[in-house]
């Protein structure tokens, strides 16, 4: 008889008896079964704890402490705890390790080595509170030349323009599918997007009927599983996005386990209840840029060429060349998702080791498109782990037209980045379909929080622009002269096309 390799608990969960009022809210709120109320005390099961903070947030007596347990192993610089525990886990199970959220290794963010510029004396800075500060962005093809007829004030545009999306702020909410997240979460995003004049993505799960009221602020996704894709789905949208890849798991497909496919998810995805929703790794009707052009055009034909079509790829080594292909495939935008992008579930090894940083991808894609004279053919939408307004301001200065925020929007809803989204037990009602848990997230409050976050970041973006003497987002985009690299090596400075500090 073999004994499984024991992996020590990660956390201590302690209830201070001198403070505890025995109200039982910890037990009621914890969906992982960490607490059990007994006659005169609360018993804890710390091995179940994922540090979601639900108990701490709801304990009226502030009686709960969660501590990381450390110093369990003999220190070894190479065989760190994580390596050893993964081996125990896989020796026990023989299985692939599944993880949630984004890349969990400490690759240094390039954003933290980039500094923004400000004006001093020679060029006046601008106060965005009192002066106009334009953050409106149009996503889609821009004509290379414009032809007009007439003269003076009486002119008419002869060039026919491609459909564009109008954004009042360059911040959109990323694609997170119904199934991966709850309807309450999606409603929060949709309401916030509508209120702020921006957009949210459906992800690959169809559009729930409750979201149709927000269809003019919704970007629908067509991924390799084609879940929920019908003429109505395409029609009820502001734009369409073909998902070819995801930064958290480049090169592989998706897999919504059957237990998450309840009646409502089944209706929206258009598959039977309890069936696995498997998205193949590639789109099997796309094996080349020519094939991609065919799907782009098929989608445009199906919607009478009235909607922009974006193509999303993971930031990989050849992202720039692929983006140039996308620009030539009639697409209106290329979405690049960096290696720190989030996910509900991904094999850990892919999440942590595949892809490239979004900073390098934006810079190289923008440069490639400019060098080929086709930058106007596609907008660049960047995503993948933007943590604050500085990250997204730097992303725009590197060449992005707009950004998607995913994990940050979830955190606004209360997500604590515990990384257990795939368990479907999210106590914050975000990454779960359990009605009791979903009811904890009020979409009206959620929308307010997401809207607050985007509003605050947009204000900060305006402050940063104003400090740099820039009053239009168009003048910030690709303006790498307003960035300097701090302690970045020469190679990466060259890729970013950014000078070093002091230069």
């Amino acid at each position, binding site marked *: 008889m073999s004994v499984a390799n024991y992996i020590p608990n990660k956390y201590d969960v302690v209830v201070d008896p001198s403070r505890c009022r025995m109200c039982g809210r910890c037990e009621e709120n914890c969906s992982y079964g960490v607490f059990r109320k007994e006659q005169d005390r609360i018993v804890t099961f710390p091995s179940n704890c994922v540090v979601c903070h639900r108990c701490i947030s709801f304990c009226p007596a502030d009686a709960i402490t969660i501590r990381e347990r450390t110093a369990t192993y003999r220190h070894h610089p190479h065989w760190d705890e994580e390596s050893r525990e993964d081996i125990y886990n896989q020796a026990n199970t023989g299985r692939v390790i599944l993880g949630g959220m984004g890349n969990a290794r400490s690759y240094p963010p390039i954003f933290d080595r980039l500094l923004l510029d400000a004006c001093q004396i020679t060029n006046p800075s601008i106060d965005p509170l009192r002066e106009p500060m334009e953050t409106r962005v149009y996503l889609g093809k821009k004509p290379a030349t414009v032809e007009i007829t007439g003269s003076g004030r009486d002119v008419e545009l002869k060039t026919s323009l491609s459909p564009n999306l109008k954004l009042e702020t360059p911040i959109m909410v990323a694609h997170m599918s119904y199934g991966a997240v709850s309807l309450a979460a999606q409603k929060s995003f949709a309401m916030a997007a509508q209120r702020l004049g921006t957009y949210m993505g459906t992800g690959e799960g169809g559009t729930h009927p409750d979201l149709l009221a927000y269809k003019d602020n919704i970007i629908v996704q067509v991924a390799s599983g*084609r879940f929920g894709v*019908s003429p109505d789905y395409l029609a009820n949208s502001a734009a369409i996005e073909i998902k070819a890849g995801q930064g958290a798991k480049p090169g592989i497909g998706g897999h919504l386990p059957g237990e998450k496919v309840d009646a409502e998810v089944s209706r929206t995805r258009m598959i039977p209840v*309890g069936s696995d929703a498997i998205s193949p790794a590639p789109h*099997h009707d796309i094996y080349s840029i020519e094939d991609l052009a065919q799907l782009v055009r*098929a989608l445009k034909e199906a919607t009478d060429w009235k909607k922009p079509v974006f193509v999303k790829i993971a930031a990989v080594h050849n992202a720039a060349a692929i983006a140039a292909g996308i620009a030539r495939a009639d697409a209106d935008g290329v979405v690049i998702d960096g290696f720190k992008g989030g996910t509900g579930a991904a094999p850990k090894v892919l999440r942590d080791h595949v892809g490239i940083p979004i900073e390098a991808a934006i810079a190289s894609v923008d440069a490639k498109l400019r060098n080929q004279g086709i930058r106007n053919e596609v907008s660049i939408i960047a995503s993948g782990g933007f943590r604050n307004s500085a990250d997204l301001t730097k992303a725009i200065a590197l060449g992005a037209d707009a950004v998607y925020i995913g994990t940050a929007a979830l955190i606004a809803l209360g997500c604590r980045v515990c990384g257990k989204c795939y368990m479907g037990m999210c106590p914050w009602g975000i990454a779960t379909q359990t009605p009791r848990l979903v009811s904890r997230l009020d979409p009206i409050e959620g929308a307010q929080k997401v809207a607050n976050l985007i509003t605050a970041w947009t204000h900060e973006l305006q402050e940063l622009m104003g400090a740099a003497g820039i009053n239009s987002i168009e003048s910030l985009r690709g303006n790498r002269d307003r960035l300097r690299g701090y302690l970045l090596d020469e190679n990466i400075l060259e890729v970013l096309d950014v000078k070093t500090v002091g230069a």
Partner: protein
Amino acid sequence: MNERTIDVKNLDYRELNRTIREAVAGGVRSITLNNVLGQRFIADGITAKDLSITVNGVPGGDLGAFMDGPSIRVNGNADHAPGNTMTSGTIIIDGDAGDCVGHSMRGGTIMVRGNVGYRVGIHMKQYREQYPKIVIGGYARSFLGEYMAGGIILILGLDATEAIVQDYVGTGIHGGTIYIAGELEDHQLGVAAVRKDFTEDDLQVVTGLITQFNAQFGTDVDPAAITFTKIQPMSARPFSGLYTTER
């Protein structure tokens, strides 16, 4: 019935589809397209349930993609992915067709008189009353019914000049049924695909489809004279035992 015949020689696909859309909006319910030569996306996204389109010639890829309702008959061969992600309707091809016939189709029927290419019926799926069906008269190449999540594929293998099906049949299948005329070697079965007993109920299903096939193409295929192999998923959760969770 309000009919219209259009000569589409030298017409590009956008103009062609615009013409179809305008005709449909004007009440036309029967359209004949003559001299079709490689135009893609014909009837793409059209939702008129009572519309019938006759295609004389060879249409390009994505014939009837995303469509919801119309009936299309092709007198000629078709390129790849006819019926791509279609919701409902009928596509009858009196000739051969390329790869990915019925890619991700969710409902409706596709019948091909001749042979088809690779990955036919990939990821077709059923939903409530929607139950997609593909009938192929000749042979189909590798990866038939890959990722199949619902519906029926029937391969008759008539006059087949090569193997009726090749390898990786139903690989990754997690819903639906594949019927193949004749025997299958074990090595031809894909991951998660297993043979099941061909029952009286199956014979009824197959007979119904063959009756339609005969009516469409004037053939006289007799289901009773054929030994069918039935392939279904091992389970609706073929990959459930693959993962352990991060600690």
